[in-house]
């Protein structure tokens, strides 16, 4: 009986485009930003996915992007290392700079860019190769290792930083696809940090993992933040609250509000942010 359920579900507020702010509320700027995005707009064919997004990403900070499905947070994330280039209909305009260099300048090659801005995907996607080869692949194609011994050191260090070394050090030749889901995701993180990037982009890295594996990844993000800037897209508000220093709230292709995580969750300034973090829609 429906009536016996406790409490009625919250009413869905109407989403009114007019309520979307033209400018982002909160502080989009940081001191000494590693990456800056200004007035970024992305179109898929005729459809505008995001527009007017401006945001700084600081050095060694963890920033999380939250927002309802389809709000453009993943699209914006994929602009930062030009992964959107693989989608034929996708057009990116605006200005995105890494350490002051325009990454969308015509003469920029995406290969070195992606070596500086690593990425971890939603679903763990190790190569169908051995654990060692998975981690060694990036350094190998970029020529980072001086010799075989150096490569071994790189692989070991990357796996250690990803918190996987103790679990796999005696079976480096086993296929990476044979690991558990959480281990695979940490392997993907090891693969990303093996090329010594400046920024790591994580697109819902824990959505396919169980709570224990999620806790390990979050712990890892915390540790890695001492050396890398980490941008994490997440659907879990708790996760955003736990791991990130700053949080950005996206809605319908706009960056609605951004600020220090504590401030954003305690005192959201925009009505929509408030609605989202109190669970009224999403």
């Amino acid at each position, binding site marked *: 009986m429906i009536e016996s359920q406790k409490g009625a579900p919250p009413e869905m507020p109407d989403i009114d485009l007019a309520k979307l702010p033209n400018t982002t509320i909160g502080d989009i700027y940081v001191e000494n930003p590693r990456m800056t995005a200004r007035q970024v707009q992305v179109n898929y064919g005729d459809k505008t996915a995001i527009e007017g997004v401006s945001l700084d990403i600081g050095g060694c900070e963890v920033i999380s992007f939250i927002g309802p499905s389809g709000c453009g947070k993943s699209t914006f994330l994929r602009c930062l*290392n030009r*992964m959107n280039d*693989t989608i*034929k209909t996708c057009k990116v305009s605006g200005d995105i700079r890494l350490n002051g260099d325009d990454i969308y300048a015509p003469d920029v090659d*995406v*290969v*070195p*860019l*992606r*070596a500086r801005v*690593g*990425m*971890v*995907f939603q*679903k763990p*996607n*190790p*190569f*169908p*190769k051995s654990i060692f080869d998975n981690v060694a*692949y*990036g350094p190998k*194609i*970029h020529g980072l290792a001086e010799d075989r011994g150096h490569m071994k050191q790189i692989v070991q260090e990357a796996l250690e930083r990803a918190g996987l070394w103790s679990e796999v050090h005696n079976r480096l030749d086993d*296929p990476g*696809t*044979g690991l558990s889901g959480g281990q695979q995701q940490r392997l*993907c993180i090891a*693969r*990303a940090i*093996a*090329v010594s990037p400046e920024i790591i982009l994580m697109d819902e890295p824990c959505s396919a993992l169980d709570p224990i594996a999620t806790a390990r990844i979050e712990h890892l993000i915390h540790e890695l933040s001492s050396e890398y800037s980490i941008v994490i897209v997440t659907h879990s508000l708790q996760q955003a609250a736990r791991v990130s220093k700053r949080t950005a709230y996206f809605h319908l292709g706009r960056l609605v509000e951004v600020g220090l995580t504590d401030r954003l969750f305690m005192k959201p300034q925009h009505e929509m942010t408030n609605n989202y973090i109190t669970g009224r829609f999403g």
Partner: protein
Amino acid sequence: MISTSKGMVSPKMATKRVAASMAKRKKSERNFQLLGRGAIAVALAFLVVLFSSIFSKGLPGFFQYYVEIEVDIDREKLDPTGIFSQQSLYDGDARGVIRSALYAAVGAEGRSNKRAAGKLISPGAEQRLRKMVYNDPSLMDTTQTLRFAMDDDVDSFLRGFINRETPEKDRRINDRMVEYIDRLQADGKIIYAFSDYLIFGSASRNPEMAGIYGAFIGSILTLSVCLVLAFPIGVATAIYLEEIAPKNRITEIVEININNLAAVPSVVFGILGLAVFIGIFGMPRSIPLIGGVVLALMTLPTIIISSRAAIRAVPPSVREAALGVGASQIQTIFHHVIPLAMPGMLTGTIIGMAQALGETAPLLMIGMVAFIVDVPGSVTDPGTVLPVQIFMWADFAERMFVQKTSAAIIVLLAFLITMNAAAIVVRKKLERRW
């Protein structure tokens, strides 16, 4: 309460209706299963009929009747000039040596009797004797028990295809010959043994000497040319179209045309080969090189289409992973996409090769149907291929060619199965990498 107005039914009603519909569903499931089993049974029955007919006709084709006679290898007769070369042996009277041994064996005297006895043995016997002596000169001036193939009419008679009750003038074996055959058989000199001519012989008008060796080598040479051309070109085309080519009108037209080419009758490719390679470039006819090129053209669409399907089946997450660590497009393709797509590409290639192996029509067009006794030594020597050989034999009137045709079909099938088995082994090896 059950509502009378149309709309959602009550849970009670729904339970009832689901139960009522179950019987119908189960029945249709059962019917479908029966239908499927019936279809498999029919297919298997056809397969059994096909194979039993091929094997019952073809297996005897692997054997033939030989006669064993005591041959007095006389140097005077065999090599009268004493030079001992292939030519001098050829000039000698090998036929006479064999004939006299044969006459002695059956006790033939008088011209007509001797003529009848002479017809018992294959004309290939002399050639075999010459070769034997040339390879082993110590046989000269000795007496050896040698085994020679019997004439194809005798063979057919011994198999019972020629009835001895038939009036003499209506059969190819006269009464005298029947008498001699009976005598040889009574003496235990007629032997039914594995036919070395079939495996090691080449095309011949004498069915007892005809073999598939030349056609087999021709098939291998033609298929090698075909594979060397079609596999790299096909895979490269598939990779380019699937991974690199911009998606525009031109690539669309190319794609449509490749798909259309897969449906073009193979004989058209033969005409193309005839017009272009023989007509314009003036290359010689009947050579495996052109056969291979023509078959490669025919096989390319198959390889391209299946390779593209294999590339498309590579999960996008692998591509993203590679691009994400900074691999370039070409590195992504060569390090990740191709290794994962390789088993599928090989499957397509093997299907194409199997098609090419069994192809006759385009090769007829470029003259590979010619009667060629020599075994091709290279891709530019005239030759023929197994299916064309089968096609030619099926056309001959002699009874013995019927068995040889079926035997050659068995060899062709064995070739095909070996090729497929090799492909499966290679594919499993590549797949086992994880």
